[in-house]
């Protein structure tokens, strides 16, 4: 029988201080029983002598200092897993939310996991075709990568993420795949959008969902992504599946973390976020990857909304330092009516170089990608100049680049929500656009490829 304490001394925000405890350890899971029999869960944040500081996941409202009973369970937070979790919907703490039966666990896993030994990692290099040109052609994604979508409120990041989840495949392979979806503090409608999309396409059978909605306890969000990644690790590294993990929205997660930090009166870092935000975020993001000798992989697609579209805000900023690139969704392109509104210039996939080229996509991919970037950047500069001085001030060459930039946005970036372009189609589209430019300007492409791929140029 576990010892029960009725020695709560303080309750402040989501935190509780329990006195006269014995044998309590750091990060231990606790149960708090309210007089009505309601049970809430908590975690030990600090032990100091006989005092334990407990963070209550479901929030402290309604807890009475004298009436609450606390039990320390002698273990960390665990997630019961088995193959039956596929197709199920859980809440943010891993309890079934879909009125389905309890999971009969194959095993119970600590949700904090352990860091993957860098020596055991296998470098991600398998090209994932998402069918979205702005990603496949310009910011190629590979299996085992963590590639977040940096977005803003009111932008179609959910539609883009759902499209990627629908279309993503590795060419020439038939392998087991699964989607793990973790919602942190998003609205019912947003969550419902994903769930109904998974239903419509049948993906729900291969999906595990952890849902913490905007009106669910905020502190629970700290556990939600860890639940999801624990499930993903089980599926990937024990059941040999290729798992795509969608985490949305990391901004709400970081805010929950800030709430705890503020309640503990810690010295804040930038914008009130705790100094350990980087380390904490990395303990989520770094759980993506591949491991030598294991068949499965974890690819992460976290979504975060940048407050005021500001990329230097601590959440996107620190994320960008950990993740392997970022896909930036732009309000300007969205206003122009372009879907998906991916701003390719500040977007980046750090692992693209290992996933493209002969045998993976096509030999000309790297050169054309660099050339498209350089040409689009120059075209946009020319357009800015024209906006100040008028079109007439541009040189002939710059006019061509300016036209190229427009065509690039409307033909290459823009595509249908159900349009699944093959990598060949994407690359050929790039070459079609090159024919708008003088050949001497194609400095980043090898001659041999120009001969081979450039469509015959019209004389003008």
């Amino acid at each position, binding site marked *: 029988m576990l010892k029960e304490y009725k020695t709560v001394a303080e309750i402040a925000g989501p935190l509780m201080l329990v006195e006269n405890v014995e044998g309590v350890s750091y990060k231990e899971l606790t149960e708090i029983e309210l007089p009505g029999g309601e049970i809430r869960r908590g975690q030990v944040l600090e032990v100091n002598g006989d005092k334990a500081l407990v963070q209550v996941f479901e929030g402290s409202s309604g807890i009475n200092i004298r009436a609450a009973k606390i039990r320390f369970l002698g273990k960390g937070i665990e997630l019961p897993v088995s193959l039956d979790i596929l197709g199920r919907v859980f809440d943010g703490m891993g309890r079934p939310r879909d009125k389905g039966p309890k999971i009969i666990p194959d095993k119970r896993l600590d949700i904090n996991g352990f860091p993957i030994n860098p020596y055991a990692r296998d470098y991600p290099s398998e090209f994932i075709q998402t069918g979205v040109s702005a990603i496949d052609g310009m910011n190629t994604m590979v299996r085992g990568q963590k590639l977040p979508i940096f977005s803003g409120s009111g932008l179609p990041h959910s539609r883009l993420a759902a499209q990627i989840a629908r279309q993503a495949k590795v060419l020439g392979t038939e392998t087991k795949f699964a989607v793990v979806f973790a919602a942190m503090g998003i609205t019912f409608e947003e969550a419902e959008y994903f769930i109904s999309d998974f239903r419509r396409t049948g993906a729900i059978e291969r999906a595990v969902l952890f849902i913490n909605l905007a009106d669910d306890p905020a502190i629970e969000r700290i556990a939600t992504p860890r639940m999801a990644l624990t499930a993903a690790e089980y599926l990937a590294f024990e059941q040999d599946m290729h798992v795509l993990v969608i985490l949305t929205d990391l901004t709400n997660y970081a805010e929950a973390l800030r709430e705890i930090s503020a309640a503990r009166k810690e010295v804040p870092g930038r914008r009130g976020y705790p100094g350990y935000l980087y380390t904490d975020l990395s303990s989520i993001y770094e759980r993506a990857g591949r491991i030598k000798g294991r068949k499965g992989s974890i690819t992460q697609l976290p979504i975060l909304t940048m407050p005021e579209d500001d990329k230097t805000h601590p959440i996107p900023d620190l994320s960008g330092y950990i993740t392997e690139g970022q896909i930036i969704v732009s309000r300007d392109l969205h206003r122009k009516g372009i879907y998906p509104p991916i701003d390719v210039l500040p977007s980046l996939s750090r692992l693209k170089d290992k996933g493209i080229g002969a045998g993976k996509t096509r030999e000309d991919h790297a050169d054309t990608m660099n050339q498209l970037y350089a040409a689009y950047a120059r075209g946009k500069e020319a357009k800015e100049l024209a906006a100040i*001085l008028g079109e007439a001030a541009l040189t002939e060459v710059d006019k061509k680049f300016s036209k190229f930039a427009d065509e690039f946005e409307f033909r290459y970036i823009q595509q249908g929500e159900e349009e699944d372009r093959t990598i060949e189609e994407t690359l050929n589209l790039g070459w079609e656009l090159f024919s708008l430019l003088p050949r001497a300007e194609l400095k980043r492409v090898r001659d041999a490829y120009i001969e081979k791929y450039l469509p015959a140029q019209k004389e003008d």
Partner: protein
Amino acid sequence: MGDGRIIKVSGPLVVAENMGDARMYDMVRVSDEGLLGEIIEIRGDRASIQVYEETGGLGPGAPVYNTGAPLSVELGPGLIEAIFDGVQRPLDVIWKKVGDYITRGIEAVALDRERKWAFVPRVKKGDLVQAGDVLGTVQETTLVEHRIMVPPAVPSGKVAEVFSGEFTVTDVIARLETPNGVVDVTMLQKWPVRKGRPYKEKMGPYIPLITGQRILDTFFPVAKGGTACIPGPFGSGKTVTQHQLAKWADAEIVVYIGCGERGNEMTDVLMEFPELKDPKSGEPLMKRTVLIANTSNMPVAAREASIYTGITIAEYFRDMGYSVALMADSTSRWAEALREMSGRLEEMPGEEGYPAYLGSRVAEFYERAGRTINLGSDNREGALTVVGAVSPPGGDLSEPVTQATLRIVKVFWSLDASLAYRRHFPAINWLLSYSLYQENIDPYLRELLGDKWIEMRREGMRLLQEEAELEEIVRLVGVDALSARERLTLETAKSIREDFLHQNSFHEVDTYTSMHKQYRMMELILNFHHEALKVVEKGELDLDLEKLFALPVRERIARAKYVPEENLGELDDVDNEIKKQIAELSGEGGEADA
């Protein structure tokens, strides 16, 4: 010595009582799992301990054992080609012991105790030796001859015995008779990481560290024994630049510290370096490299230690008389680890929550670089070059870590996000970066490449400066307002940017450019400029500048970067073409006049 007891656990910080015997920075073992920790504060009999491993599950009452020694690294054969964590546990050994995840309380000695190395003595019985003298050598890898030295603390003495043959690192390879008695010397030495290894004398650096990266070698060189920093926002190419340096810098030993960064990046180095060939010897680059990996999700206290572990290993190779290059990516993560521990100790914070001693810690670290006369009677010279990446939040260079770093380092490579968006790599801003070593190393470069090189470099930089000024005018009034001469300046500056500074690290030829090729490339660009200038200055007013800029030879100049080092002869032909094509064009213009 009595054992301590834990009374408080807060993240990586543990407070224990009954620690009266403890000294600052002693290593301790926490709980029966034996987690490694280090004492960072003592109050009465209470000691605050930063624990290098995950502390979940620890609670009051658990024991703390003092080892009585500070955090030290093991130095000896077996360092090269290894990958260690922040406290020098070999990650491959951990992997063999516990599998794919790094769990807790794993004990793994840094250097293999079983492996035998062929030791060849350099001294004989009766020789007089002092601290730092080389007793013999071990061919550790095809690229590195490991010199076994008399440890710094051993007094001068006479060689009583020296052995030859196959030994493990703990076998005695020599006996010295010293005033303090007979000293047994093994190939293994230990050294506390927070203390720099001693040397006889420090000297100013004057030889450039050739990196094969054009913008660095030509405009912002770092000297062997110097310090440099690369601050930049994410995605601007810090890590790629650091990797390029680790690959191509002409150092004899490279120590690469992945401090709080991505796991996949270390895997990349581990998989790529054995494949890449050293441009000089043709041997795999891994055979001169030591890796320290403490990724961002590994415990934060060990991240703080990783920087010191790395630099102590680097100093050890410097002591042997090598030129060592150390890359630390990223020092900001190390500073953040300091901040986190400082916060948990409830110290009064300085700027942005960083501890007040941040500046002095940064300075102490970079000051361990330098060109030195080492211990030992042969006055060997060694050099330790330190290059630190800095990750300023939001790319804002006014933040404390960047500022503390800039106060101490001599070379500043300023990464620029707008260049990165244009995929101009390396995205180093040529107007903001600087190198304070240029003066020191110019005599060396004059010797190597001749006086003309210095002139060309100055002219190149002047053109880039002029471009920046002219572009402001263009932005206001358009390109038509510029004279032909100014438009040529713009065009040449563009050529320097695109054909010289832009360098593709993933292209098999472009990734490395020798100094001689850099010279030839710059010469081509400037030759075109000078020839074109002659035509423009002759005042042929109706000369079509567009035509001049579109001469076919310009494409050949642009492609010079892809000409392999062994075919540089091809470039002579480009020189002739420049003269010929411009003369032809000028001739056309002349005929039209007539």
